[in-house]
Protein backbone atom coordinates (compact mmCIF):
# COMPACT_ATOMS: atom_id res chain seq x y z
CA UNK A 1 0.00 0.00 0.00
CA UNK A 2 1.15 3.51 -0.76
CA UNK A 3 2.21 5.27 2.42
CA UNK A 4 0.66 8.51 3.62
CA UNK A 5 3.96 10.26 3.02
CA UNK A 6 4.09 9.19 -0.63
CA UNK A 7 0.53 10.35 -1.17
CA UNK A 8 1.28 13.65 0.55
CA UNK A 9 4.29 14.17 -1.72
CA UNK A 10 2.15 13.58 -4.82
CA UNK A 11 -0.64 15.80 -3.51
CA UNK A 12 1.87 18.56 -2.93
CA UNK A 13 2.76 18.26 -6.57
CA UNK A 14 -0.88 19.10 -7.37
CA UNK A 15 -2.29 15.58 -7.64
CA UNK A 16 -5.83 15.90 -6.28
CA UNK A 17 -6.53 12.17 -6.62
CA UNK A 18 -3.69 11.34 -4.26
CA UNK A 19 -5.06 13.76 -1.74
CA UNK A 20 -8.53 12.28 -2.02
CA UNK A 21 -6.98 8.88 -1.37
CA UNK A 22 -5.74 10.32 1.91
CA UNK A 23 -9.22 11.68 2.58
CA UNK A 24 -10.70 8.23 2.03
CA UNK A 25 -8.11 6.73 4.36
CA UNK A 26 -8.62 9.20 7.18
CA UNK A 27 -12.22 10.44 6.98
CA UNK A 28 -13.55 7.93 9.51
CA UNK A 29 -10.97 8.49 12.26
CA UNK A 30 -11.26 12.25 11.76
CA UNK A 31 -15.05 12.14 11.85
CA UNK A 32 -14.98 9.90 14.92
CA UNK A 33 -12.62 12.28 16.68
CA UNK A 34 -14.78 15.30 15.87
CA UNK A 35 -17.93 13.46 16.88
CA UNK A 36 -16.55 12.40 20.23
CA UNK A 37 -15.23 15.86 20.99
CA UNK A 38 -18.27 17.92 19.98
CA UNK A 39 -20.99 15.30 20.15
CA UNK A 40 -23.11 16.33 17.16
CA UNK A 41 -23.30 14.27 14.01
CA UNK A 42 -23.90 17.02 11.48
CA UNK A 43 -21.36 19.40 12.95
CA UNK A 44 -18.80 16.62 13.24
CA UNK A 45 -19.24 15.98 9.55
CA UNK A 46 -18.71 19.65 8.78
CA UNK A 47 -15.61 19.69 10.93
CA UNK A 48 -14.26 16.63 9.11
CA UNK A 49 -14.89 18.21 5.70
CA UNK A 50 -13.31 21.48 6.77
CA UNK A 51 -10.32 19.60 8.19
CA UNK A 52 -9.53 18.14 4.79
CA UNK A 53 -10.10 21.43 2.97
CA UNK A 54 -7.70 23.18 5.32
CA UNK A 55 -5.21 20.37 5.08
CA UNK A 56 -5.30 20.56 1.30
CA UNK A 57 -4.84 24.31 1.23
CA UNK A 58 -2.14 24.15 3.90
CA UNK A 59 -0.26 21.28 2.33
CA UNK A 60 2.59 23.61 1.43
CA UNK A 61 3.10 24.38 5.11
CA UNK A 62 3.19 20.73 6.15
CA UNK A 63 6.87 19.94 6.57
CA UNK A 64 6.47 16.28 7.36
CA UNK A 65 7.98 16.68 10.82
CA UNK A 66 4.96 15.03 12.34
CA UNK A 67 2.91 12.19 10.92
CA UNK A 68 0.29 13.30 8.42
CA UNK A 69 -2.42 11.90 10.71
CA UNK A 70 -1.12 13.90 13.68
CA UNK A 71 -1.22 16.99 11.54
CA UNK A 72 -4.84 16.23 10.59
CA UNK A 73 -5.73 15.61 14.23
CA UNK A 74 -4.30 18.97 15.14
CA UNK A 75 -6.41 20.73 12.52
CA UNK A 76 -9.51 18.84 13.68
CA UNK A 77 -8.91 19.67 17.34
CA UNK A 78 -8.45 23.34 16.49
CA UNK A 79 -11.70 23.34 14.52
CA UNK A 80 -13.47 21.58 17.37
CA UNK A 81 -12.14 24.15 19.81
CA UNK A 82 -13.43 26.95 17.57
CA UNK A 83 -16.76 25.18 17.33
CA UNK A 84 -17.08 24.87 21.10
CA UNK A 85 -16.16 28.52 21.53
CA UNK A 86 -18.64 29.57 18.88
CA UNK A 87 -21.47 27.50 20.26
CA UNK A 88 -20.61 28.60 23.80
CA UNK A 89 -21.84 25.40 25.31
CA UNK A 90 -20.34 22.27 26.63
CA UNK A 91 -20.39 19.53 24.05
CA UNK A 92 -22.99 16.93 24.77
CA UNK A 93 -22.92 13.61 23.04
CA UNK A 94 -26.22 12.93 21.34
CA UNK A 95 -27.58 9.72 22.69
CA UNK A 96 -30.05 8.26 20.20
CA UNK A 97 -33.54 8.07 21.65
CA UNK A 98 -34.68 4.53 22.26
CA UNK A 99 -33.25 1.43 20.66
CA UNK A 100 -34.47 0.15 17.33
CA UNK A 101 -34.52 -3.64 17.64
CA UNK A 102 -34.76 -4.26 13.91
CA UNK A 103 -31.81 -2.04 13.22
CA UNK A 104 -29.94 -3.72 16.03
CA UNK A 105 -30.65 -7.18 14.70
CA UNK A 106 -28.70 -6.39 11.55
CA UNK A 107 -25.77 -5.25 13.64
CA UNK A 108 -25.61 -8.23 15.94
CA UNK A 109 -23.06 -10.92 15.31
CA UNK A 110 -23.91 -14.58 15.79
CA UNK A 111 -21.83 -14.59 18.97
CA UNK A 112 -23.86 -11.76 20.49
CA UNK A 113 -27.50 -11.97 21.46
CA UNK A 114 -29.90 -9.08 20.98
CA UNK A 115 -30.03 -8.68 24.75
CA UNK A 116 -26.27 -8.29 24.88
CA UNK A 117 -26.37 -5.80 22.06
CA UNK A 118 -29.06 -3.74 23.74
CA UNK A 119 -27.07 -3.62 26.93
CA UNK A 120 -23.96 -2.66 24.94
CA UNK A 121 -25.89 0.24 23.39
CA UNK A 122 -27.15 1.31 26.79
CA UNK A 123 -23.64 1.09 28.14
CA UNK A 124 -22.43 3.21 25.21
CA UNK A 125 -24.97 5.84 26.14
CA UNK A 126 -23.84 5.80 29.76
CA UNK A 127 -20.23 6.18 28.60
CA UNK A 128 -21.12 9.11 26.32
CA UNK A 129 -22.90 10.81 29.18
CA UNK A 130 -20.00 10.29 31.57
CA UNK A 131 -17.51 11.51 28.96
CA UNK A 132 -19.49 14.70 28.40
CA UNK A 133 -19.16 15.55 32.08
CA UNK A 134 -15.35 15.55 31.95
CA UNK A 135 -13.36 18.78 31.66
CA UNK A 136 -12.31 19.41 28.04
CA UNK A 137 -8.63 18.61 28.68
CA UNK A 138 -9.29 15.26 30.26
CA UNK A 139 -11.87 14.30 27.69
CA UNK A 140 -9.59 15.17 24.79
CA UNK A 141 -6.71 13.16 26.30
CA UNK A 142 -8.94 10.12 26.76
CA UNK A 143 -10.40 10.38 23.27
CA UNK A 144 -6.96 10.59 21.69
CA UNK A 145 -5.59 7.70 23.73
CA UNK A 146 -8.55 5.40 23.97
CA UNK A 147 -10.30 5.88 20.67
CA UNK A 148 -7.61 7.19 18.33
CA UNK A 149 -4.90 4.99 19.79
CA UNK A 150 -2.16 7.62 19.94
CA UNK A 151 0.90 7.17 22.12
CA UNK A 152 1.44 9.42 25.14
CA UNK A 153 4.24 11.16 23.27
CA UNK A 154 2.04 11.83 20.22
CA UNK A 155 -0.68 13.27 22.44
CA UNK A 156 1.85 15.47 24.24
CA UNK A 157 3.13 16.80 20.88
CA UNK A 158 -0.39 17.35 19.61
CA UNK A 159 -1.56 19.23 22.69
CA UNK A 160 1.74 21.02 23.25
CA UNK A 161 2.06 19.85 26.83
CA UNK A 162 4.50 17.74 28.84
CA UNK A 163 4.23 13.96 28.85
CA UNK A 164 3.48 13.91 32.56
CA UNK A 165 0.53 16.28 32.03
CA UNK A 166 -0.98 13.90 29.48
CA UNK A 167 -0.66 11.00 31.91
CA UNK A 168 -2.16 12.99 34.76
CA UNK A 169 -5.13 14.05 32.64
CA UNK A 170 -5.73 10.46 31.61
CA UNK A 171 -5.44 9.17 35.14
CA UNK A 172 -7.82 11.76 36.53
CA UNK A 173 -10.27 11.41 33.67
CA UNK A 174 -10.38 7.63 33.89
CA UNK A 175 -11.03 7.78 37.61
CA UNK A 176 -13.91 10.21 37.13
CA UNK A 177 -15.37 7.94 34.45
CA UNK A 178 -14.98 4.91 36.68
CA UNK A 179 -16.89 6.58 39.51
CA UNK A 180 -19.60 7.90 37.22
CA UNK A 181 -20.14 4.55 35.55
CA UNK A 182 -20.32 2.85 38.93
CA UNK A 183 -22.93 5.37 40.02
CA UNK A 184 -24.86 4.68 36.84
CA UNK A 185 -24.95 1.03 37.84
CA UNK A 186 -22.31 -0.24 35.44
CA UNK A 187 -20.24 -3.04 36.92
CA UNK A 188 -16.61 -2.21 37.47
CA UNK A 189 -15.43 -5.76 37.04
CA UNK A 190 -15.66 -8.19 34.17
CA UNK A 191 -17.61 -11.29 33.63
CA UNK A 192 -19.77 -13.52 35.73
CA UNK A 193 -20.68 -11.08 38.49
CA UNK A 194 -23.95 -9.87 37.11
CA UNK A 195 -25.85 -13.11 36.52
CA UNK A 196 -24.98 -14.20 40.03
CA UNK A 197 -26.24 -10.93 41.46
CA UNK A 198 -29.49 -11.31 39.54
CA UNK A 199 -29.98 -14.85 40.82
CA UNK A 200 -29.31 -13.69 44.34
CA UNK A 201 -31.85 -10.91 44.25
CA UNK A 202 -34.39 -13.26 42.67
CA UNK A 203 -33.94 -15.71 45.55
CA UNK A 204 -34.32 -13.00 48.11
CA UNK A 205 -37.62 -11.97 46.51
CA UNK A 206 -38.83 -15.56 46.61
CA UNK A 207 -37.85 -15.86 50.25
CA UNK A 208 -40.03 -12.90 51.24
Amino acid at each position, binding site marked *: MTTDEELVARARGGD*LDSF*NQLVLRWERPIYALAYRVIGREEDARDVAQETFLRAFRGLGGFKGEAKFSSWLYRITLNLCRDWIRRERRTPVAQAPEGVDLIELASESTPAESIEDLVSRKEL*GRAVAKAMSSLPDEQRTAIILK*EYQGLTFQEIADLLNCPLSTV*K*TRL*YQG*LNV*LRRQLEQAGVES*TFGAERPRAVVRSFRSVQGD
Partner: protein
Amino acid sequence: MCDKELLVSYLYDELQGSERKVFQHHLASCRECQDEVQGLRATRAHLMSWAPPEPVLGLQVSDRDAGRRFRIPAAWGLAAAAALVLAAASAIANVEVRYADGGVTIRTGWAPEASPPGATVSAAASREDLAAVQQRIRELEAELAARGAAPLTTTPAALTDEPSRSANSLTDAELLRRVRQWISESEKRQEQLFATQFVQGMRELQAAHSMDHVRLEQAINQHQGAWSDEVYRQREELKQVFRLVNAQQR
Protein backbone atom coordinates in the same frame (compact mmCIF):
# COMPACT_ATOMS: atom_id res chain seq x y z
CA MET B 1 4.22 6.33 47.53
CA CYS B 2 2.48 5.06 44.41
CA ASP B 3 3.51 6.56 41.07
CA LYS B 4 0.29 7.16 39.16
CA GLU B 5 2.10 8.10 35.97
CA LEU B 6 3.70 4.68 35.98
CA LEU B 7 0.30 3.15 36.68
CA VAL B 8 -1.24 4.87 33.67
CA SER B 9 1.65 3.85 31.43
CA TYR B 10 1.31 0.29 32.68
CA LEU B 11 -2.43 0.39 32.07
CA TYR B 12 -1.85 1.31 28.43
CA ASP B 13 1.07 -1.05 28.07
CA GLU B 14 3.54 1.74 27.43
CA LEU B 15 6.08 0.70 30.05
CA GLN B 16 9.27 -0.89 28.87
CA GLY B 17 12.22 -2.70 30.36
CA SER B 18 13.29 -1.69 33.82
CA GLU B 19 10.37 0.69 34.44
CA ARG B 20 7.98 -2.13 33.78
CA LYS B 21 9.80 -4.45 36.16
CA VAL B 22 9.87 -1.79 38.87
CA PHE B 23 6.15 -1.18 38.61
CA GLN B 24 5.26 -4.86 38.50
CA HIS B 25 7.31 -5.35 41.63
CA HIS B 26 5.41 -2.53 43.32
CA LEU B 27 2.07 -3.83 42.09
CA ALA B 28 2.67 -7.24 43.60
CA SER B 29 2.72 -5.73 47.05
CA CYS B 30 0.30 -2.77 46.72
CA ARG B 31 -3.35 -3.58 47.22
CA GLU B 32 -4.45 -0.05 46.28
CA CYS B 33 -2.72 -0.13 42.91
CA GLN B 34 -4.03 -3.63 42.21
CA ASP B 35 -7.59 -2.42 42.77
CA GLU B 36 -7.00 0.63 40.69
CA VAL B 37 -5.50 -1.25 37.75
CA GLN B 38 -8.36 -3.72 37.82
CA GLY B 39 -11.03 -1.04 38.12
CA LEU B 40 -9.58 1.17 35.40
CA ARG B 41 -9.16 -1.83 33.05
CA ALA B 42 -12.86 -2.46 33.45
CA THR B 43 -13.58 1.22 32.79
CA ARG B 44 -11.44 1.07 29.64
CA ALA B 45 -13.38 -1.98 28.48
CA HIS B 46 -16.65 -0.11 28.98
CA LEU B 47 -15.38 2.87 27.00
CA MET B 48 -15.21 0.64 23.93
CA SER B 49 -18.98 0.41 23.81
CA TRP B 50 -19.28 4.08 22.85
CA ALA B 51 -19.29 3.86 19.09
CA PRO B 52 -19.74 6.93 16.91
CA PRO B 53 -22.47 6.80 14.28
CA GLU B 54 -21.26 5.53 10.94
CA PRO B 55 -22.72 7.76 8.25
CA VAL B 56 -21.70 7.43 4.63
CA LEU B 57 -19.18 10.22 4.55
CA GLY B 58 -17.72 10.24 1.04
CA LEU B 59 -15.79 13.42 1.75
CA GLN B 60 -13.77 14.79 -1.14
CA VAL B 61 -11.77 17.81 -2.06
CA SER B 62 -12.50 19.09 -5.55
CA ASP B 63 -10.78 21.55 -7.85
CA ARG B 64 -13.49 24.03 -7.00
CA ASP B 65 -12.86 23.62 -3.26
CA ALA B 66 -9.18 24.12 -3.79
CA GLY B 67 -9.79 27.69 -4.91
CA ARG B 68 -13.07 28.17 -3.15
CA ARG B 69 -12.21 30.91 -0.75
CA PHE B 70 -11.98 33.84 -3.11
CA ARG B 71 -12.21 37.27 -1.64
CA ILE B 72 -14.50 39.84 -3.13
CA PRO B 73 -12.07 42.51 -4.20
CA ALA B 74 -12.43 46.12 -3.18
CA ALA B 75 -14.04 49.05 -4.99
CA TRP B 76 -13.83 48.54 -8.75
CA GLY B 77 -13.75 44.81 -8.71
CA LEU B 78 -16.87 44.93 -6.62
CA ALA B 79 -18.73 47.23 -8.97
CA ALA B 80 -17.72 44.98 -11.82
CA ALA B 81 -19.00 41.96 -9.94
CA ALA B 82 -22.29 43.71 -9.23
CA ALA B 83 -22.62 44.73 -12.86
CA LEU B 84 -21.92 41.18 -13.97
CA VAL B 85 -24.47 39.63 -11.65
CA LEU B 86 -27.14 42.16 -12.48
CA ALA B 87 -26.41 41.99 -16.19
CA ALA B 88 -26.95 38.26 -16.01
CA ALA B 89 -30.21 38.81 -14.16
CA SER B 90 -31.30 41.48 -16.59
CA ALA B 91 -30.64 39.24 -19.53
CA ILE B 92 -33.37 36.98 -18.19
CA ALA B 93 -35.67 39.47 -16.62
CA ASN B 94 -35.44 42.52 -18.83
CA VAL B 95 -33.94 44.59 -16.05
CA GLU B 96 -32.22 47.85 -16.58
CA VAL B 97 -29.21 48.57 -14.44
CA ARG B 98 -27.32 51.81 -14.39
CA TYR B 99 -24.22 52.47 -12.44
CA ALA B 100 -23.54 56.16 -12.48
CA ASP B 101 -22.66 58.97 -10.09
CA GLY B 102 -21.83 56.45 -7.43
CA GLY B 103 -25.37 55.14 -7.33
CA VAL B 104 -26.83 51.94 -8.63
CA THR B 105 -30.15 52.22 -10.40
CA ILE B 106 -32.20 49.15 -11.07
CA ARG B 107 -35.37 49.14 -13.14
CA THR B 108 -37.33 46.19 -14.30
CA GLY B 109 -39.08 46.04 -17.63
CA TRP B 110 -41.90 43.97 -16.24
CA ALA B 111 -43.66 46.54 -14.18
CA PRO B 112 -42.02 49.94 -14.25
CA GLU B 113 -44.88 51.56 -12.38
CA ALA B 114 -44.59 48.99 -9.61
CA SER B 115 -41.16 50.20 -8.62
CA PRO B 116 -41.37 52.17 -5.38
CA PRO B 117 -39.28 55.32 -5.21
CA GLY B 118 -36.93 53.62 -2.73
CA ALA B 119 -35.97 51.03 -5.25
CA THR B 120 -33.24 53.20 -6.62
CA VAL B 121 -30.32 52.31 -4.43
CA SER B 122 -28.14 55.21 -3.72
CA ALA B 123 -24.60 55.08 -2.56
CA ALA B 124 -24.51 58.73 -1.65
CA ALA B 125 -23.61 57.95 1.95
CA SER B 126 -20.62 55.99 0.90
CA ARG B 127 -19.60 58.84 -1.41
CA GLU B 128 -19.42 61.16 1.58
CA ASP B 129 -17.39 58.58 3.45
CA LEU B 130 -15.12 58.28 0.49
CA ALA B 131 -14.52 62.02 0.41
CA ALA B 132 -13.73 62.00 4.12
CA VAL B 133 -11.29 59.21 3.70
CA GLN B 134 -9.61 60.73 0.71
CA GLN B 135 -9.18 63.83 2.80
CA ARG B 136 -7.67 61.74 5.58
CA ILE B 137 -5.32 60.01 3.18
CA ARG B 138 -4.15 63.37 1.87
CA GLU B 139 -3.40 64.37 5.44
CA LEU B 140 -1.46 61.18 5.98
CA GLU B 141 0.44 61.67 2.76
CA ALA B 142 1.37 65.17 3.76
CA GLU B 143 2.56 63.80 7.05
CA LEU B 144 4.62 61.12 5.42
CA ALA B 145 6.05 63.56 2.92
CA ALA B 146 7.08 65.78 5.81
CA ARG B 147 9.11 62.87 7.13
CA GLY B 148 10.63 62.27 3.73
CA ALA B 149 8.81 59.02 3.13
CA ALA B 150 7.34 58.04 -0.23
CA PRO B 151 3.70 59.12 -0.70
CA LEU B 152 0.98 56.54 -0.38
CA THR B 153 -0.66 55.32 -3.51
CA THR B 154 -4.17 56.54 -3.09
CA THR B 155 -6.70 53.81 -2.76
CA PRO B 156 -10.12 55.31 -3.29
CA ALA B 157 -11.46 52.83 -0.82
CA ALA B 158 -10.33 53.61 2.70
CA LEU B 159 -13.16 54.68 4.93
CA THR B 160 -12.93 55.64 8.55
CA ASP B 161 -15.05 56.80 11.44
CA GLU B 162 -12.05 57.47 13.57
CA PRO B 163 -11.76 61.12 14.54
CA SER B 164 -8.74 62.89 13.26
CA ARG B 165 -6.30 63.04 16.07
CA SER B 166 -2.85 64.42 16.39
CA ALA B 167 -0.85 62.12 14.19
CA ASN B 168 2.49 63.72 14.81
CA SER B 169 3.33 61.23 17.47
CA LEU B 170 2.59 58.22 15.25
CA THR B 171 5.40 55.98 14.19
CA ASP B 172 5.58 54.76 10.62
CA ALA B 173 4.67 51.25 11.67
CA GLU B 174 1.66 52.53 13.56
CA LEU B 175 0.64 54.60 10.57
CA LEU B 176 0.92 51.64 8.26
CA ARG B 177 -1.05 49.47 10.61
CA ARG B 178 -3.88 52.01 10.73
CA VAL B 179 -3.99 52.48 7.02
CA ARG B 180 -4.22 48.72 6.62
CA GLN B 181 -6.98 48.64 9.21
CA TRP B 182 -8.95 51.34 7.41
CA ILE B 183 -8.59 49.57 4.15
CA SER B 184 -9.81 46.29 5.57
CA GLU B 185 -12.71 48.05 7.28
CA SER B 186 -13.62 49.68 4.04
CA GLU B 187 -13.52 46.34 2.25
CA LYS B 188 -15.89 44.96 4.83
CA ARG B 189 -18.25 47.90 4.35
CA GLN B 190 -18.18 47.52 0.65
CA GLU B 191 -19.02 43.86 0.97
CA GLN B 192 -21.98 44.85 3.13
CA LEU B 193 -23.00 47.59 0.75
CA PHE B 194 -22.81 45.20 -2.14
CA ALA B 195 -24.88 42.65 -0.26
CA THR B 196 -27.49 45.28 0.63
CA GLN B 197 -27.73 46.55 -2.90
CA PHE B 198 -27.97 43.08 -4.26
CA VAL B 199 -30.68 42.09 -1.80
CA GLN B 200 -32.66 45.26 -2.58
CA GLY B 201 -32.32 44.60 -6.27
CA MET B 202 -33.51 41.04 -5.85
CA ARG B 203 -36.43 42.16 -3.70
CA GLU B 204 -37.54 44.51 -6.38
CA LEU B 205 -37.25 41.83 -8.99
CA GLN B 206 -39.41 39.60 -6.84
CA ALA B 207 -41.97 42.35 -6.28
CA ALA B 208 -42.08 42.99 -10.01
CA HIS B 209 -42.34 39.30 -10.62
CA SER B 210 -45.33 38.83 -8.34
CA MET B 211 -46.99 41.92 -9.86
CA ASP B 212 -46.54 40.25 -13.18
CA HIS B 213 -48.19 37.12 -11.91
CA VAL B 214 -51.21 39.10 -10.75
CA ARG B 215 -51.48 40.86 -14.10
CA LEU B 216 -51.11 37.65 -16.03
CA GLU B 217 -53.82 36.06 -13.95
CA GLN B 218 -56.12 39.02 -14.54
CA ALA B 219 -55.43 38.83 -18.25
CA ILE B 220 -56.20 35.14 -18.28
CA ASN B 221 -59.43 35.71 -16.39
CA GLN B 222 -60.46 38.44 -18.79
CA HIS B 223 -59.60 36.22 -21.68
CA GLN B 224 -61.58 33.37 -20.20
CA GLY B 225 -64.49 35.74 -19.66
CA ALA B 226 -64.31 36.96 -23.24
CA TRP B 227 -64.04 33.41 -24.48
CA SER B 228 -67.15 32.24 -22.67
CA ASP B 229 -69.02 35.32 -23.95
CA GLU B 230 -67.97 34.32 -27.44
CA VAL B 231 -69.16 30.75 -26.92
CA TYR B 232 -72.47 32.05 -25.65
CA ARG B 233 -72.83 34.41 -28.58
CA GLN B 234 -72.06 31.67 -31.11
CA ARG B 235 -74.50 29.31 -29.44
CA GLU B 236 -77.20 31.97 -29.68
CA GLU B 237 -76.41 32.47 -33.35
CA LEU B 238 -76.61 28.72 -33.99
CA LYS B 239 -80.00 28.61 -32.26
CA GLN B 240 -81.08 31.48 -34.48
CA VAL B 241 -79.90 29.59 -37.59
CA PHE B 242 -81.76 26.45 -36.45
CA ARG B 243 -84.92 28.42 -35.97
CA LEU B 244 -84.60 29.92 -39.43
CA VAL B 245 -83.93 26.52 -41.05
CA ASN B 246 -86.89 24.98 -39.22
CA ALA B 247 -89.12 27.82 -40.31
CA GLN B 248 -88.05 27.41 -43.99
CA GLN B 249 -88.67 23.62 -43.88
CA ARG B 250 -92.20 24.25 -42.77
